[in-house]
């Protein structure tokens, strides 16, 4: 699969791919093939699809603990992403990064990141590098509503605005940071945080890939023209658990009614309705066969050799320390 494209079918293909990827990944968590669980992106697919469809292949993104969607939408091979989740040597990071740390530098994916907020300044640095090497590449930082309360995110907004860097700050407001509702965590507003630094900031419907795409195009144009960063707050609902352990430990921070009504605005249905039935079915079948192959590839891969644990600590191959038994 390639990066999300901005056509009707292209957007549908990406949201559908992410949806089914996550559902099949959850199955592999249940069977024990993915150890440690995942943070499913289900319900937020339109954001990754809409933003990545506004990008070029040579633009870069950084992502979060809930990052499979971003990585797939930017064009990573689903088979290698899934192998990474399953901890196999054939994964994007040879099984060493896992669900929260998929990275594919060839595809402009500088890394998902499990430390909430930590990816934002890295994006700023990548944007600075683009600007100062004379390219018009842009850099996108995806983050959640929880991240906007981390100091490092505010530092990143300031730096990007101060240096007029080509950054898109994409906040996925899914209403919760783990179990804490956004209303009990965020003083002021999310767009207000951007505005305070003079960053053009908008709120869009994060369930509709076209709405996200439209906002992202404006922001990308601004960034490429040298007019600095933008912030897009995408309103969405997380359909599944915060993390798959929640499937076992029911936590009751959202009522059944809320979850039910949150799921009514489904990005896959919204974009799917823009396709003829036959068209949609053809894409669904393609996605399914891609994922069949991905699952087979992921499960066929060998586990990493523990003997290689020291191989990549230092650029020179230096192994000055080893710990263990001595």
């Amino acid at each position: 699969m390639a990066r999300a494209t901005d056509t009707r079918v292209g957007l549908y293909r990406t949201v559908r791919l992410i949806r089914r990827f996550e559902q099949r990944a959850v199955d592999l968590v249940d069977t024990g093939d993915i150890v440690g669980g995942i943070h499913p992106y289900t319900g937020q697919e339109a954001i990754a699809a809409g933003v990545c469809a506004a990008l070029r292949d040579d633009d870069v993104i950084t992502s979060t603990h809930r990052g499979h969607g971003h990585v797939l939408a930017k064009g990573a091979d689903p088979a290698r992403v899934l192998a990474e989740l399953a901890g196999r040597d054939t994964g994007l990071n040879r099984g060493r990064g896992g669900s929260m740390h998929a990275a594919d530098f060839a595809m402009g994916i500088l890394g998902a990141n499990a430390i909430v907020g930590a990816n934002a300044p890295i994006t700023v640095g990548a944007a600075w590098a683009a600007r100062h090497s004379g390219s018009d590449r842009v850099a996108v930082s995806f983050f959640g509503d929880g991240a906007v309360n981390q100091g490092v995110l505010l530092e990143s907004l300031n730096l990007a605005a101060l240096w007029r860097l080509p950054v898109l700050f994409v906040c996925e407001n899914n209403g919760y940071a783990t179990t804490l509702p956004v209303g009990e965590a965020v003083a002021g507003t999310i767009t207000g945080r951007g505005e305070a630094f003079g960053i053009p900031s908008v709120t869009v419907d994060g369930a509709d890939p076209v709405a996200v795409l439209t906002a992202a195009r404006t922001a990308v144009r601004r960034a490429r023209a040298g007019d600095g960063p933008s912030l897009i707050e995408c309103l969405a609902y997380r359909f599944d658990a915060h993390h798959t352990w929640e499937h076992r430990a029911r936590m009751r921070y959202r009522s059944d009614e809320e979850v039910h009504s949150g799921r009514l605005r489904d990005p896959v249905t919204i974009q799917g309705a823009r396709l003829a039935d036959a068209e949609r079915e053809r894409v669904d079948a393609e996605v399914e066969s891609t994922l069949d192959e991905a699952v087979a590839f992921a499960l066929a891969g060998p586990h990493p050799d523990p003997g290689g644990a020291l191989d990549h600590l230092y650029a020179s191959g230096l192994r000055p320390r080893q710990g263990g038994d001595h």
Partner: protein
Amino acid sequence: MATPVMDTNTTPTVQKLTIGKSLNLGLRAAMEADPKVIVMGEDVGKLGGVFRITDGLQKDFGEHRVLDTPLSESGIVGTAVGLAVRGFRPVCEIQFDGFIFPAFDQIVSQVAKLRTRTQGRVNVPIVIRVPYGGGIGAVEHHSESPESYFAHTAGLRVVTCSNAVDAYWMIQQAIQCDDPVLFFEPKRLYHSGNLKADVDTTATPEPLFQSRTVRQGTTATIATYGPSVKVCLDAATAAEEEGKTLEVIDLRTLSPLDLGPVYESVRRTGRLVVVTEAPSESSLSSEIAAKVQQECFYSLEAPVIRVTGFDVPYPPAKLEEHFLPDLDRVLDAVDRSLAW
């Protein structure tokens, strides 16, 4: 220490508890005993913490004493400093070991230094609770053992519990301590039914900053703490079948270290194995080895041997069994010491 107020009419004084439940009851007792104790952290209130260690506390003590904070580690610990210097005793929960680092600046630059900087005019009685260590099949940042960073920093106290009785008392003692305490909790043992123990809430606890000999022996000494205590006790049981008796010391306090019982033991056994999940380079295990060779030089029959995590970023879940010290690695180290 002040005896926590327990309602003896409804609560039996001896209960069989897991480590997790003991911590919960210990926190509860501390909050009952002192209205200045407040609990703060991510998801600690309504949810009761991702490990449920603060379960029910917000319901019973209210939102002003059990605060659900935004995702903001530096803000949480920094706020606790302000509370502490104005008379409160904040207990901060860091959700997982790997998420303490956004707060590292506050801990090292403020929490640790304030007392010295003000020449004793203020105390900083903060407890920072950290679920730590591996063995739960988790992803990166959820299995680390960062205790040495904090033990390295003068002005902080660092303790860790390995069993339910200690969990109950040590958390209360840490809260009563006038210095800042990093309180490391062995997360993989939180809910272990096998480790349920009789906790007598009317007992008199041992002092907080003391190590304890948890098994006596004459063949070799093992110094360890936290989640590795159980591993070493199991190793000692296995060694006994081979006619070796291992003396196991649960260090409990990592800063200040209480190595008196270790010195005394090594002078008898002549051999020391130090076991930690944390990697060894420039660590607590290095410190223990250095001090023991200095104090017990003429008694040592073999160099101090360390069995630790490897000096690599914590590995993915499927490889963690290779990283974590286990019974075989401990016994192997004992054999190597004996063969010296």
